[in-house]
């Protein structure tokens, strides 16, 4: 459910729209921010706040890959394996990454709950392959070593925190 502060934030956003339902994406973004994923309660809360049906909000959540219904790691590592990237070896890059993290070849979440790794379609950076998007930030022209270094850095960050 949305917290009091989140409700207030949402109300501010609602002022910008003539029609409440138009605010569904920012509302879901707020609801998802704290935990990286949305519970059914979060979704119901958004539907009620915007006066639209739960089914409509669920369908929107299902449509956008950045909105999630399952718990994820702290960092979501998305690797594009779509055709142009695949032609430049992104599939192997992805498979090796999963292997080094001890994950099955299709990806998943590491045991420490830190990384969720998944293959996605075009991230619109086909000229900088291999690439990964980690919690909305792009890391381009990667090699195995570079991505390992980046993940190590994140691991250290979260240990420090």
């Amino acid at each position, binding site marked *: 459910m949305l917290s009091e502060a989140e409700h207030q934030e949402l109300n501010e956003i609602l002022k910008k729209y003539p029609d409440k339902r138009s605010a569904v994406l920012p509302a879901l973004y707020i609801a998802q921010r704290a935990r990286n994923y949305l519970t059914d309660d979060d979704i119901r809360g958004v539907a009620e706040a915007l006066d639209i*049906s*739960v*089914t*409509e909000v*669920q369908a929107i959540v299902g*449509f956008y890959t950045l909105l999630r219904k399952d718990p994820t790691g702290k960092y979501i590592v998305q690797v594009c394996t779509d055709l142009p990237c695949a032609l430049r070896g992104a599939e192997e890059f992805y498979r090796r990454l999963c292997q080094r993290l001890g994950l099955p070849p299709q990806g998943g979440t590491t045991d420490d709950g830190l990384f969720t790794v998944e293959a996605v379609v075009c991230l619109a950076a086909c000229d900088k392959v291999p690439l990964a998007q980690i919690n909305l930030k792009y890391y381009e022209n990667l090699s195995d070593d570079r991505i390992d270094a980046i993940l190590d850095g994140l691991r250290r960050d979260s240990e420090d925190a």
Partner: protein
Amino acid sequence: MTVTLTIDGRQATVPKGTLIVEAAKQVGIEIPVFCYHPKLEPVGMCRMCLVTVGTPLVNRATGQSQLDADGLPIIRWFPKPQTACTMSVSEGMVVITDSQEVAADRKAILEFLLTSHPLDCPVCDKGGECPLQDLTYRHGPGVSRFDYDSKHHSAKRYPLGDLIVLDRERCILCARCTRFQSEIAQDPVLAIENRGRDARIVSYSNPVFDSHYSGNTTDICPVGALTSRDFRFHARAWELTNIPSLCNHCGVGCNTVLSTRRGQIARIMPRQNETVNEVWICDKGRFGHHFNSSPYRLTMPLIRRDGELVEASWDDALQHVASRLTSIIEAHGSDSIGGIAGACLPNEDLYLFQKFLREVIGTHNVDHRVGLSATFEDDTVYAVGVGTGTDLGRVGRDTAFLVIGSDLDQEAPILYLRVAGAARHGATLITAGGRPTKLDKQSNHSLRYRYGTATHLLLGMIHVILEANLTGNETVPHRVNGLNELRANVADWAPERVAEITGVPPDEIRAAARAFGEAKNGIVLYGPEGLGWGNGTQGTSWEAGSPLRQAVANLVTLTGFIGRPNNGVIAVLPHANSRGAADLGVVPDRLPGYVPAERPGLNAQEMLGGGVRALLVAGADPLAGVTLADELEFLVVQELFLTQTAQQADVILPAAALAERDGTFTNLERWVQRFDPGLPVPGQARPDWTIIRQLAVLLGADWAYATVGGVLAEMAQAIPLYRGMSYEQLSQPVSLSRRMSHYIYAGMSFQAEMREGMQWPALAEDGSAKLELDWLDPPAPPAEGDGFTLVAPRVLYDGGTLLGQAEILGTRLVQPHIALSSADAAALGVLDGQGLQVSANGQSISLPARVDGLVPQGVVAIPRNLKGAPAESLLGEGRIFSRVKVVKG
């Protein structure tokens, strides 16, 4: 404005804005579609309708088409094929649908749709009437080039609630079902979740697929993905016998197709009638038919002997009735006999029923109004009912609706769809009620009055309309009497004063009244929750001359919203033939055709209260929860089931159900429509009208009616309103051109004839008739103070005898409860589901509480006609509102 274009060499002239697919239909060319449906907004999702389109090259300087060497316009072709379902026609457009390219496109699209289609046609319910099957046969490839083992699999039996099952492998994601739910039903409870290969239809409502209209999605689904649990795997489409019938569950009079197999109803589907139900029916109509083949049907006459009901022959039973009636008449006179007929009986039966009492017995003791759901006394529509030719499916911007005291989504679902649809197409919608209803979501003005003050609100609106001079200038000066008196009378009812009584802010009253008065056409629908608190007899449903009805009549008369199509009043009466019962004089004070009776008889309440010694009851259950009056010596009941009334009868005569016989009903908009017989009669049951005829003959009348049509012929002679109606006329299929112009490809059962009824004209349509603006003082507003106001709304899935037999609707039937606002629940300290005790009238009833955001503070709602009749026993004798005490416990 029309536009002329060429389609495959044929010239079509169609209104501007017409879609290519519709224009093609007009010249007999069928463009295949999946996602397109004429009732839904086009989306262009499936690409099945691709055609080649070109437009004439126009010289920008002259605005003229450029011509080639032969003097023909030069056509600029769109570089890619276009979707005929989303593109509107334009002048000089050229469309090609019969080329090799188009054929190749169709084939390719079908091949795509079939890549992972399960092709289980041999066991699919849609098989035989499936657009995907038909179009593949016609345009598709014969074999698939895709690898069988790589097919995508998904859920085959996914329950979308209790009524509908989804086969996700068959779904082609055309979004017809989701669009129907969002656009037409206004219940956006279906959606497409995820995308690409994972896209699927879902519902997250509680209960799942929560809508009164869900069954319609099975009709419009162009494949066998959505099936009703009721029909799934029960029969193949080609084994069915399809009978044109009517729904008997409410006054809308939806046209249906009864599909029968081996003497049973296999399914009920809508039968297209653009002026009544278009192509829809509600779930009550679709699934509520199981009573027909119920094992509890009465099949033999029963006579009470030594306190026990025992089987008897028809001869014995009828003889027994005739001789008892004769001896009671001899001893006590004709007025010691009375009759109550249900408003679910067909016209012919009702006509003979009242004729039997009036002419054979010699009494006016006849009525059809029992319980709270009884129709209210209604002759308003006789005078100012909507003009003949009214079609709510076609009205838009220039029409204003005022819906007062009615929850259409519950009381008359398909009327709800049509009014909501009109609002969607720009009509002004004003809703007024004691609580918000689903229609309020669509309304432009939503007025919330305190229960019991509906009349005051209307007087306030009339005040504003007169003040702003929004009276109908064409009709009012010549045809209307009493304008000055009315002006004087409403002078006292300025919005400020009305606001104090009703609780509706004055500005809202003004805005709504102006919006109504300024429209070109105006329609008022009034329902059961506006009535009550009448003069003298407070809160009774059948008070004569209700001030509310008078105010409604005055409102439409002085605005000139009368006597024309799409103008006038619709009374939202409760039963399938409530309109017919009023028309045909099944009331003690009026003969058929709204002719006053010289010597009014007793009404139902008086008869039940001991006013008669013998009572004939046909198709009604007036003794539910009521004990037999001591004065009553002899009770005869014609029924389908052993109802509470039948259990107390001396003679029970088993009647045939609607599906087993023919006859006519008159719907809320006064369409008289015919239904045909489709099932064999169980046991020895007989149609009610034949039972009445035989009794009349035994009592010495020379009644020779041989058919229902013969009875209607007499009605057409005897009752001016029904003049010109004939069984033959009512059986005529609609003309081919009319049928073509409404033709909807796919998902419609065209196996049974499309017919249109005949509508009798309201008095106001006679241009020479003078109309009176009578005045009735509004009732005193209900006293505030201790306790709560109890109201008894009508709900769709109530606890009536017929509906209770439909197991499939079991979980949807409304269980007895008491609904109240969350503020009141908190004040009383109850949680949802805990017990509440309501007392009134010396009665006390405990029911579980239901906290309902829609119930206003200070009001408790117990739906009427539930199991055990809690609302009825608290309200008593036909009252609609009452003050009650509510405590925890």
